[in-house]
C-alpha cells in the first residue's frame, strides 16, 4: 500500500476500533471504557490516570480485526492496545496542544502506553505534523520490539527522514520484527535500502549463517 492509501482520519480509526472492541468487551469493561472516553473527551488531563488502567479494566487478549484495520499489515491488535488508542483519539485538543499532551503521555508512560501513543499517530499524525517525530526516534533507540514495531507504522512511513526510516527497517530485521509490519515498505524502499539489505545478506553469508527469509524475500523483488 502507498503512504497515501495508509492515511486514516481520527473519526475513521475511532469507528473501526470501537466496532472491533464491541464484541470482545464484557459489560463491565465496556461501561468502564465508555466512561473513560467521556472523561478524556472532557479533560485531556484525565488520560494520565486512565491510560495505565486499561489493561486491568479491559483485558489484554488478541483482538480479531477485519480488513480495513489491517491496512495491508498483520492483524497485530490486542484489546488493550485498541482501547488505549481509542482513548487517545478522544483527546479534546489538536495541533501544538495535542503534541504536548502526547509527548507527556509518552514520556510518563510504561511500554504499553508508549506503544499506544505511537499507534495513535496513524490517525493523529495529520494533526501534529512532524512534531511527534522525537517520540519515534526515542522508540527506535530502544530494542523493545513492541515499540520498534509501533514506530514503523503509517506515521513513520510518512514522516521519518529517509536515513532514519532505512535504519528503522534494518532494526526490524535485527530485532526480529517481521518486515510485513513495516507500513508502506514497497512504496518507500529505495536503492539505498536495497544496498543496506544486500550488504547485510552478504555479511550473514560470509559468517556461514542463514539470510533471514524476510530479507531474502525483500531482495528477490528488487
Amino acid at each position: 500500500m502507498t503512504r497515501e492509501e495508509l492515511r486514516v482520519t481520527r473519526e475513521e480509526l475511532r469507528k473501526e476500533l470501537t466496532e472491533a472492541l464491541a464484541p470482545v468487551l464484557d459489560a463491565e469493561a465496556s461501561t468502564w471504557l465508555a466512561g473513560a472516553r467521556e472523561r478524556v473527551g472532557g479533560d485531556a488531563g484525565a488520560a494520565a490516570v486512565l491510560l495505565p488502567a486499561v489493561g486491568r479494566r479491559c483485558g489484554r487478549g488478541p483482538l480479531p480485526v477485519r480488513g480495513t484495520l489491517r491496512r495491508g499489515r498483520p492483524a497485530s491488535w490486542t484489546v488493550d492496545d485498541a482501547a488505549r488508542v481509542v482513548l487517545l483519539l478522544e483527546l479534546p485538543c489538536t495541533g501544538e496542544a495535542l503534541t504536548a499532551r502526547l509527548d507527556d503521555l509518552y514520556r510518563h508512560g510504561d511500554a504499553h502506553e508508549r506503544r499506544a501513543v505511537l499507534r495513535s499517530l496513524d490517525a493523529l499524525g495529520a494533526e501534529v505534523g512532524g512534531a511527534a517525530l522525537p517520540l519515534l526516534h526515542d522508540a527506535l533507540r530502544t530494542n523493545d520490539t513492541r515499540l520498534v514495531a509501533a514506530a514503523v507504522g503509517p506515521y513513520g512511513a510518512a514522516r521519518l527522514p529517509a536515513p532514519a526510516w532505512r535504519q528503522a527497517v534494518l532494526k526490524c530485521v535485527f530485532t526480529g520484527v517481521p518486515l510485513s509490519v513495516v507500513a508502506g515498505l514497497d512504496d518507500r524502499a529505495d536503492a539505498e535500502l536495497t544496498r543496506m539489505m544486500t550488504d547485510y545478506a552478504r555479511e550473514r553469508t560470509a559468517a556461514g549463517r542463514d539470510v533471514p527469509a524476510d530479507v531474502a524475500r525483500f531482495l528477490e523483488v528488487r
Partner: protein
Amino acid sequence: MRIFDPHIHMTSRTTDDYERMYQAGVRALVEPAFWLGQPRTSVGSFVDYFDGLVGWEPFRAAQFGIRHHCTMALNPKEANDPRCRPVLDLLPRYLEKDGVVAVGEVGYDSMTPEEDEVFARQLALAAEHDLPVLVHTPHRDKAAGTRRSLDVVRESGLPPERVVIDHLNEVTVGPVADSGCWMGFSIYPDTKMDEDRMVAILREYGTERMLVNSAADWGRSDPLKTRRTGEAMLAAGFTDDDVDQVLWRNPVEFYGQSGRLVLDVPADAGTLFEGNSVLRGTPA
C-alpha cells in the same frame, strides 16, 4: 515446582540468570525498586530506573517466559539525600502503572528522622493508590528496626494483611507473626538466612503468610535460592502442596491484592512485537 520470586532485582542480573530461573521453575517475579550500590544524585536517575522497571525489564523477562512485575518507592537509604527527595512527587504517576503491584521497598536503613517521614508518606501513598506495601528491614540494628517498622505500619492504619515485612530471621519473625503482617525471608548464599534455617522457621510458624525470596541483586546472591528452599522443604518432609503454597500461591495472594498481577504465559519472543501477551487457555 512452579515458583514466584516475590523479591529479586533483575536489573542487575544477566540473561543467563533468566534462563536458569526458567529451567528451575520460576514463571513470575516481583522486582522491588531499591538502591543500586552507587548512590544516585538526581531525580532523573530515578526516572530512568523506574521507566526500566515498567519498560525494558518486563520485556527482557518475557523473552525468557517469565512474568515481571515491580514495586515502586524511594528507598530508605536514599531518603536521606535531599537531592532524591523530589522522587516522592513522581511516585503517584508511577503507582498507577499496570506492572506496579506494591509500594516498596520502604522502611528503615539507619532510622533517621528523614527515613521516618519518607516511610510514613509512602504508606499514605499505598492507601491512596490501593496497593500493598513491601517493607525492607535494616541490616544493622535489625530487631529494633523491625519493631519500629511494625509500629509505623500500625499507626498508618493500613490493614496488616496488605503489608509484608521482609528480610526476617529467627529473632525478628515472632513479632511480625503476631502483627498479622506477611513475613518475608531472603535466602542468601552466606549466613544471613539459609534454606535449612528457613525450613526450621516454616516448621515452627507454619506456611501461611510466608514469602520466600532470593533478593538476588548485584551483591553476593543466588537467583535459584527459591528453588533450593523448595527442595529443602521436600527433603524435610513438607508436601508438594506446602511447597506450592509458599513458593507460588502465597506471593500470588499477597501481590494479587493489587488487582494487577498478570500470570498468563508471555508471548513467544518472536511475536512480542504484536503487543504484550498471548493468552493460552486463560480468559482475559
